[in-house]
């Protein structure tokens, strides 16, 4: 897709991921986090119609449940005892805490499964090499090699299978040995060919002087506006968390999960921040809709 959130400047995109990660980790409130998860599911759906999510959901449910249950089973602090299980009190506080833990974890994963769709490898390397040019080049080379080596390794596996080297039959030890022989073969072959790669770099003047960097992205006014918005929302969220509005108070008495008064303001700010990509997408959809109607 060539429209919407992902067409913003990579710096904007990275800022969003950083800001949202921070917001999720500091706002430890089940009400906040529950809606965060909902918004992120929406984001995933907008991103690729939920394809990646479908792949991951079992894992999310499993680990979410595990983390949710882990806390009340192991942590018995709190005043509101719900029931006794194996002579151990299961407290309200611990259940809520477990929910917060699970929601934080799932929210972070939901956020980052969208990452490769939004910041693909070339944008990521662009950002990375902006800060660390040499590391950027190393990573760029490696990223270029990985698909090549994967193809090479699969070829080696196939050809060696024809020679009777199997990874699927025999003892585990034999299979491990065979597997390593294939990786070793890939390594030797690739290092051998790598000299040509280095020569080709040198032949094109690498290392003669400070490199410049081709920048395929332009920073538009809308990008600057977006960075400003995200940064502003993040600042307000941090402020809210510092005031204690984004955090569910547990001690001395657990506060109600439902929000009151000023908390609503910070909840809206937090949700706007997390839902920023969804808002951009909706705005864009609306524009398309009206553009089509006019034409």
């Amino acid at each position, binding site marked *: 897709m060539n429209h919407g959130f992902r067409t913003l400047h990579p710096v904007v995109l990275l800022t969003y991921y950083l800001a949202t*990660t921070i917001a999720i*980790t*500091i706002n430890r409130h089940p009400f906040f986090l529950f809606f965060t998860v909902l918004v992120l599911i929406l984001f995933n759906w907008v991103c690729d119609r939920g394809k990646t999510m479908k792949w991951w959901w079992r894992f999310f449910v499993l680990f979410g449940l595990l*983390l949710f249950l*882990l*806390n009340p089973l192991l*942590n018995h602090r709190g005043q509101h005892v719900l029931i006794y299980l194996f002579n151990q009190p299961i407290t309200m506080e611990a259940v809520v805490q477990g929910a917060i*833990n*699970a929601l934080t*974890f799932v929210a*972070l*994963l939901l956020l*980052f499964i969208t*990452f*490769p769709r939004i*910041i693909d490898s070339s944008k990521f390397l662009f950002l990375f*090499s*902006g*800060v*660390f040019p*040499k590391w950027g*080049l*190393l*990573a760029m*080379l*490696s990223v270029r*090699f*990985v698909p090549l*080596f*994967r193809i090479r*390794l*699969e070829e080696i*596996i196939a050809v060696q299978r024809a020679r009777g080297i199997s*990874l699927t039959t025999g003892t*585990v030890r034999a299979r*491990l040995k*065979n*597997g*390593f022989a294939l*990786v*070793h073969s*890939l*390594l030797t072959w*690739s*290092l051998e060919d*790598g*000299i040509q790669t*280095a020569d080709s*770099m*040198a032949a094109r003047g*690498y*290392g003669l002087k*400070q490199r*410049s*960097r*081709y*920048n395929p*992205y*332009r*920073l538009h006014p809308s990008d600057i506006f977006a960075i400003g918005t995200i940064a502003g929302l993040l600042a307000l969220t941090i402020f809210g968390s510092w005031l204690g509005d984004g955090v569910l108070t547990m001690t001395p008495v657990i506060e109600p999960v439902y929000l009151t008064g000023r908390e609503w303001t910070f909840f809206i700010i937090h949700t706007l921040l997390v839902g920023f990509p969804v808002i951009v997408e909706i705005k864009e959809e609306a524009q398309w809709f009206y553009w089509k109607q006019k034409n």
Partner: protein
Amino acid sequence: MESGGNFISATSHYGKVIIWWLGFALSIFLLIEEHYILSTTLLIGLAFLPLFFHIERSQITTRGIVMLAILAAVASVSRIPFAFIPNVQPATFIIIISGVVFGKESGFIVGALTALVSNIFLGQGPWTPWQMLAWGVIGFCSGRLKNTWFIKKRFGRIVFGLLSGFFFGWIMNLWVVLTVLQELQLAQILFIYGSSFPFDLAHGLANIFFLLLFSKRMVKTLNRFKKKYGILYREN
């Protein structure tokens, strides 16, 4: 941004030092405020920075860059033939031997780069810096210890392989613990570490297996290329 310049060369040495200390202060503040994950992630970043800058400044030759990139890429794809056992792959082994043959800087680069590059294909996230740290440190240590009992003796290698398997797993658990748990409680931490134990053990045993069976051959191969590629770092 348009010019493509980078702020590293633009910022003076003192500027960098000041930024570093400001970052450090912030992470301490976050620690006091009990935002463990933000604080520790920041600390990891701060620990990385001097190393990253050191490597940015070092004069790696063109061939050196290509070689390190190849080692990391091979380590990243090396799990493919081992898909039949969970958590068994020779990536850690390749990183260890890279450190042994090419020294601590190269070991660190190969380790950190392997994590970074693998995650470009498997999924980038807040866990990336932690993995970079884990593998980077393993590569660094093997390079640092290359002339010691740990790497030279058979028993030492067994210990080193096992430890690095657990070290990698524990660093990843640490990320989970710090991210998810609001109150750090021993029981839950033990539970998380316990549940990853079989996987970490498999990782460690695989390291031992590869180290015992193949380190000689691998060292020989890498030494052959060390000679072929010539020097990796030019003197400043």
